[in-house]
């Protein structure tokens, strides 16, 4: 790095990611145990295979391979003729066999890319490889942290959950790009139906970050490999969310830049992201580079996958669907983006849009429903079993049984807060659009009670009619249609 670059602070950030995602399969990757462990008692989702009992053998769950092939197609990766598994040997108490079955020289996906946008700008990041492996168990340190605990318990419920490790090229230039990428990756994985973001620990990120001279970044944003080799980088571990990734890397970026501007070298090391303190800490491991002694896992014969790419279909992905929503339903880019943010939202929108007006459906799903849910810190998933009720509410509005305002401000909110169905709320609150006789009577009353306003109306003051409409609305408890009231008043007064 040149002194000039350091002095002027003309530095560029380089980030690459290793993202571990748990694949949503019914059973574990090498045995028939259920992956749906939630908060079940420790070690209840286990068998000889995932406990690594002597003599047990792994048998590949082809569902996990299918999920991996779907990911490969979505990131436009090369899928090899044949895929094989290797053993990664290291000792750790959460690893039942003291080796992890993973992929080494024939990963299921190679050379892909993922497009995403950061603040409206489209960009893309290269995916070097993505491979399948088994998740270890989990450790519970009792009476303190890993260093101070009295003892540690091991839970193998998680052991054998299929993981996909997605390794990007060092194409990120800022922490906010990382955040946008991770959000997009989750979105795509959920669309593929291979990932559940709500599951605890379903996304884990390790990030490599280094700082180089900004002049080394060429016009197309690439950096020479030798420059990256020379730059000292840190590996930040223990990141478990998009926000966490952005925060951890912003911290690490600042820390390294500060060190450089003070003339100190950045040490090549592994650092631990402490989410609660918002800092990264050196793991202080004096270990030399680990030697995992990779070698072929003979218990799993090579699997021919070349034809799978053609045989396994993948659903329409978010980008394509967003574009279709704009052309097919005439939605704005913003509305279409919101409505394709998750597959569930998009599916629900299309369901509503087919029954009613697409614009009305967009307003109700994108603005009203998601807005109210967001306000309550809820997700669409939380009301997935009440889609019928939401659809009924939209129907009430579409058929002008109730006003849009009442539907939004009273019925929808009460549905979410009191868990009542829309028809019950309409009845309880008397929101059904008021009968014509009642409106006519209110119009007569309003005219009789407000001679001054009537006089002003005849004198040509526009505000007077609005005042009278307001009076009628008050008398009908807001359930009259303002346009209709307006017309009735004009008819009566002229």
């Amino acid at each position, binding site marked *: 790095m040149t002194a000039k670059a350091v002095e002027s602070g003309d530095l560029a950030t380089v980030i690459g990611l290793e993202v571990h995602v748990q694949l949503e399969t019914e059973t574990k990757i090498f045995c028939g145990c259920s992956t749906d462990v939630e908060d079940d008692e420790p070690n209840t989702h286990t068998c000889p295979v995932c406990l690594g*009992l*002597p*003599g047990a*053998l792994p048998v590949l769950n082809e569902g996990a391979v299918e999920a991996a092939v779907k990911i490969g197609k979505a990131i436009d990766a090369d899928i090899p003729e044949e895929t094989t598994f290797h053993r990664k040997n290291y000792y750790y108490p959460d690893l*039942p066999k003291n*080796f992890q079955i993973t992929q080494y020289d024939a990963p299921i996906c190679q050379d892909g890319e993922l497009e995403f946008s950061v603040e409206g700008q489209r960009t893309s990041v290269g995916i070097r490889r993505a491979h399948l492996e088994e998740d270890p168990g989990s450790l519970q340190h009792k009476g303190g942290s890993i260093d101070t605990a009295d003892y540690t318990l091991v839970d193998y419920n998680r052991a054998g959950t299929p993981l996909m490790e997605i390794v990007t090229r060092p194409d990120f230039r800022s922490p906010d790009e990382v955040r946008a990428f991770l959000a997009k990756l989750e979105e795509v994985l959920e669309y593929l139906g291979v990932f559940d973001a709500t599951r605890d620990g379903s996304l884990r990120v390790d990030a490599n970050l280094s700082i180089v001279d900004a002049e080394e970044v060429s016009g197309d944003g690439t950096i020479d490999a030798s420059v990256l080799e020379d730059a000292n980088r840190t590996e930040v571990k223990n990141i478990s969310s998009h926000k966490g990734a952005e925060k951890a890397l912003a911290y690490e970026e600042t820390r390294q830049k500060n060190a450089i501007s003070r003339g100190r070298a950045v040490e090549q090391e592994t650092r631990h992201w402490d989410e609660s303190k918002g800092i990264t800490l050196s793991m202080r491991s004096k270990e030399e580079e680990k030697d995992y*002694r990779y070698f072929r896992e003979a218990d799993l014969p090579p699997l021919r996958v070349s034809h799978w790419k053609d045989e396994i279909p993948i659903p329409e992905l978010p980008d394509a669907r967003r574009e279709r929503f704009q052309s097919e339903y005439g939605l704005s880019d913003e509305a279409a983006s919101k409505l394709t943010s998750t597959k569930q939202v998009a599916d629900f929108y299309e369901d509503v849009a087919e029954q009613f007006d697409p614009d009305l459906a967009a307003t109700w799903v994108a603005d009203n429903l998601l807005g109210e849910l967001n306000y309550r810190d809820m997700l669409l998933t939380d009301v997935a079993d009440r889609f019928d009720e939401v659809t009924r509410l939209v129907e009430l509005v579409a058929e002008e049984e109730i006003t849009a305002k009442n539907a939004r401000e009273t019925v929808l909110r009460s549905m979410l807060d009191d868990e009542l169905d829309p028809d019950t709320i309409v009845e309880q609150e008397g929101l059904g659009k008021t009968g014509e006789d009642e409106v006519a009577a209110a119009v007569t009353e309003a005219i009789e009670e407000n001679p001054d306003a009537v006089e002003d109306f005849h004198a040509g003051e526009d505000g007077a009619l609005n005042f009278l409409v307001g009076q009628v609305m008050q008398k009908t408890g807001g359930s009259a249609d303002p346009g209709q009231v307006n017309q009735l008043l004009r008819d009566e007064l002229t």
Partner: protein
Amino acid sequence: MSHNAYITETTIEGADDGPLAGRTVAVKDNISTADVRTTCGSAMLDDYVPPYDATVVSRLKDAGATIAGKTNMDEFGMGTTTETSAFGPTENPAAEGRVPGGSSGGSAAAVAAGEADLALGSDTGGSIRCPAAFCGVVGIKPTYGLVSRYGLVAYANSLEQIGPIAPSVEEAAELLEVIAGPDEHDGTTRDAAENGGNYDYAAAADGDVDGLEIGIPTELVDDADEGVTEVFWDAIADLESKGASYHEVELPSVEHAVEAYYVIAMSEASSNLARFDGVRYGNSGGYDGNWNETFAKAREEGFGEEVKRRILLGTYALSAGYHDKYYKKAQDARAWVKQDFDEALSEADVLASPTMPVPPMKLGESLDDPLKMYLADANTVPINLANLPAISVPAGETEDLPVGLQFVGPAFGEQQIIRAASALA
């Protein structure tokens, strides 16, 4: 007198009827039996009780067999004499004061002494054929993938198979019929019927060798003891008299087979045995403190010398900087051995050699010289490298010591070696 054939004597009853009803089967102690301890001949597992049955054990039970006990073996299968067992050596019932061979020495001894009608062994580099030869009984190492390994505690998983040991070829074939065939719990099993074979093994023991073409690899005969080669050639002459003919073949690759075998087997062992860390198996010794030191102590205490030697050498062979020099080279040699055997078998129905180049050793004379012990496997290990089936059948005696003859067949050609062997016994 007891030959110390069993580590655990027990009675596990099978189904009321079936092809093995009324017969007792001794099971090598590295094959998992639910609720009956399975030690692998190691102090590390002296109180390990599996919660599940190996697939072959389920098949024995379904076939009506009664399991008579768990037999002695070299620790984790690592040995050629059954002397590395933590439960003491087994004596050869057919040769007083001699080893029964290994590592399935207990299984062969149980059959030879009549303590069981039949037995199961496992063969990683000769561990069924060697003790069968030394104890004067029949042993079959099946084609890799014919018999499920589910429940077999792994030593070198790319090489080993479970197989039968019996007093006669026909009985060994009957036992093989029971245990052979695909298993959903073992992804490496293959269906013989879809690979040019079938499962009618006992029927193949008809002694009909008229027209049989035997290939004899000179490399596997020339280095054997004189007494052994005499018995071998007498047996070949016997087969000729029954209508078989032979020609000599060359297998230049087998010169490297022992080296390649030990590099691969030890490398795989270093990984397969990693799970024995004192956390869930073996005697953790109640050590407290640092995890690395704790498991190192548990392994130091729990494993015997030969096992530690092989784990260390295997770890070394897989290490960065040495991987290409040892492990990768050994894999290349393995491919070469396979090719040599395929070529030899394209011009012969079976290959024949002495099973062991030497007669059974005296108890206590082999342990101090591991290299010598490894070289005794010269005739058996190439077959495991090539994934082929082989049988050892008694061929006679030299100075009152049993000599075994080995037939090797093409993949899933079990019938051919059973037929050839049945002409001798």
